[in-house]
């Protein structure tokens, strides 16, 4: 099995909750910009944000994106065979996903990239 990096959603959630403190979700979301109070709430619950939202949060927190990655062991070495480093795909989903659903979707996309997934 090989090492990989993943977004530590719990660490991100803690940092956001700590910085927000007693301030309301709506006013905090307005300060961050281009994010709804509902999305902010879901991120505080540990959901995976999209790239744009994640980078805005890092800027607001005054932290580097790499501060929120953690080493994780990949589930299966076979899943990483013959896949590009970045797969271009369009995902129609909630703006925030549970980490488990996000991970499963990505694994499914990797599997689909193998030739035998297509007719």
């Amino acid at each position, binding site marked *: 099995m090989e090492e*990989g*990096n*993943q*977004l530590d959603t719990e660490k991100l959630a803690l940092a956001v909750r700590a910085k927000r403190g007693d301030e309301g979700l709506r006013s905090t979301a307005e300060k961050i910009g281009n994010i709804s109070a509902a999305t902010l709430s879901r991120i505080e619950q540990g959901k*995976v*944000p*999209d*790239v*744009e*939202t*994640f980078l805005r949060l890092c800027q607001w927190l005054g932290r580097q*994106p*790499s501060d929120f*990655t953690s080493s994780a062991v990949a589930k299966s070495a076979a*899943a990483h065979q013959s*896949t590009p*480093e*970045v*797969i*271009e*795909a*369009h*995902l*129609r*989903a*909630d*703006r925030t*996903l*549970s*980490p*488990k*659903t*996000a*991970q*499963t*979707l*990505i*694994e*499914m*996309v*990797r*599997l*689909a*990239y*193998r030739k*035998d*997934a*297509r*007719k």
Partner: protein
Amino acid sequence: MKRGFKSQAEDRAVAIRRELGLHPCARLPSERLAEKLGVQFVAPAGIPGMTPDMLAQLLQIGASEWSAVAIRFEKSTLVIENTSHSPKRRESTRFHEMSHLLCGHTPSAFVEVPGMGVLTRSYQQDHEDEADWLGRCLQLPKPVLGFCLNRDWPVEQISKEFLASEDLVNYRLNKSGALLIRRRLAQKTETR
């Protein structure tokens, strides 16, 4: 959305039916358009290597969180759809995904990014809005709505005939202007 996009989308929905040899008022099955665009729809269970746990996560536990993933290859597009959704919802999702192709939207980076190691994706609101609008026009173009209104079809019947949710039917009736035109025509007839 770009200026003029909405009216162009309405025209395009009619033009595509013509290209496929369909009447402007006919239903356009998503499979017909998929064939033309080189799109293949597949269920998660149809992806070799998917485990029962993965299927449970996507189709039960996390079923409300996602609708589809469209993966672009060199000459084709594979769309993995959430098969736990209703047929009407899946039909709308299919048209949404195909609308991204028709609009020439570039897919977003989706998987792990080396160095940053982030499992996330980009989200472009203007692209989503355009695909939403065009997808809805493709499924229920203005001629279809006029046809149905002229025959006094209730929303339930339109929904069934065109495999569209009642919410979508009501949305298109209002946003397309078809309902307003019908009301004005009815008023003119009454005053004669």
